[in-house]
């Protein structure tokens, strides 16, 4: 019986005024990230300037929610005690379709995950807050890893 992740006593995000739109969207089950109107690139995590061109013309846009598993680890001994009841669980690096990579919680799919798996946003209540987790999708897309 898998445990209810929402009952975990984990450390939530340390939200700032700048990052609040990201977390507010997450609560609504959306993934929103900044895009630079100067150089056209999407960025993660949120910043006051674009890390590629230093422009301040950053706008929030909802992401497609699609991504690719760049790496993962099944965590047996968590670094934070709040995660002990959930172990083993999987965290992974998600290369978003928009470009940037974020770390996220990877929900179990129907078979063991592999690097290159296509992922979909799967908003999940963890530790009392909805977080932008991801889940492997069944049909592995033909796209070559970037």
């Amino acid at each position: 019986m898998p445990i209810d992740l929402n009952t975990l006593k984990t450390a939530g995000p340390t939200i700032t005024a700048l990052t609040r739109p990201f977390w507010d969207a997450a609560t609504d089950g959306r993934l929103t990230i900044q895009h630079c109107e100067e150089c056209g690139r999407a960025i993660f995590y949120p910043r006051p300037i674009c890390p590629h061109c230093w422009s301040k013309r950053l706008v929030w846009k909802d992401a497609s929610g699609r991504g690719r598993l760049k790496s993962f680890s099944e965590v047996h001994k968590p670094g934070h005690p709040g995660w002990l009841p959930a172990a083993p669980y999987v965290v992974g690096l998600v290369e978003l379709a928009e470009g940037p990579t974020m770390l996220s919680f990877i929900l179990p799919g129907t078979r063991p995950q592999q690097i290159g798996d296509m992922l979909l946003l799967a908003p999940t209540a963890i530790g009392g807050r909805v977080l932008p987790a991801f889940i492997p999708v069944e049909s592995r897309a033909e796209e070559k890893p970037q």
Partner: protein
Amino acid sequence: MSRAKGAIVGIGELKPQRLTSGLTTLEMIAEVSRLAVLDAGLEPAAIDGLLVGPQVGETPQHVPATIAEYLGLAPTMANVVDLGGASGAGMVWRAAAAIEAGMCDAVLCVLANNREEVAPRSPNRNPIREFDVPFGASGANISYALLMQAHMAEYGSTARDFALIAAAARANAQLNPDAIFYGKPADVEAVLASPMIASPLHLLEIVMPVAGGEAVVVTSTERARSLRKPPVHLLGAGEKVTHRAVSQAPSLTSGPLKSAMARAFQQSGTRADEMDLLSLYDCYTIMVATTIEDAGLCAPGAFGAWLNDHDLSHKGAKPLNTHGGQLGFGQPDLAGGMTHIVEAVRQLRGEAGERQIGKAGLALVTGNGATMSEATALVLGAA
């Protein structure tokens, strides 16, 4: 070979221990600094440069001033070097540069840490804390597991390939009575049988945190000639910092050490395959694997075959971390990176005792901080 940039003339090291009861970091800094300055044959008053680590124990701010006062020094150059496990190597070239710039003549570079039963949790308020920790990724183990998994997927490297690194470190530690794993060898089977911490990373592929301290004294090559120990010359250095969180790493299978080592080789007019000692930062097995590949000692992905082809002990042609590395010696926090410098100096001086390597002309020392993020490489040479 190009002109030396400076010389390491004194070394100090505290025997690592699992716990220190009541000992402060400042006390340990004083002990290890004394050892290094005595080894150099200098009077304490001759030390006019001081490089220290960040957030020393009970002292989060004004660290150089606090340590200078504690040691009775009045340096004309004092600073913090905050590059994680690359801090020690980062101090050595900064010391030489400060001497070259006319700011000081003899620089004490020192790192130490106590270790209490209950360690305070990190007070981080940064992007990692906000965007990684809430998803269940706390601590370095998971970050390095992600790097290791990516290497295995990209190149087909195996758990056994990585275990070779931990087993070699433990084997070398059997010739270092100060190592935390002295008298406790572990072969490849033992490494693979140790508990899975964060797949694919086993317990014995992770350094043991210990208390300890390391120090070196750097001066000019001219001044070094008149001191009591054979100087070890800094022939080249390189550094690069690319990211902090693993999610922001430009590559998962190659790191900033690649560029740092290339610069160190270029400055020194040397090549990786000319090194008589490889003193490579080893917080995790994956770090050594990537460094061997980034140094150009083998093709990307081929470290396993390279390890199988070489004797990594002091008797072999490619001695690697003869002190046991941090995987065998223990990791005294930021001072862990400096163990690789202190051992290289011992070897290049011919002072390594029963683990002395044969030809000891050149050593490559690497430092690595955060998640393959902060990189410093040094090429050191016997005088």
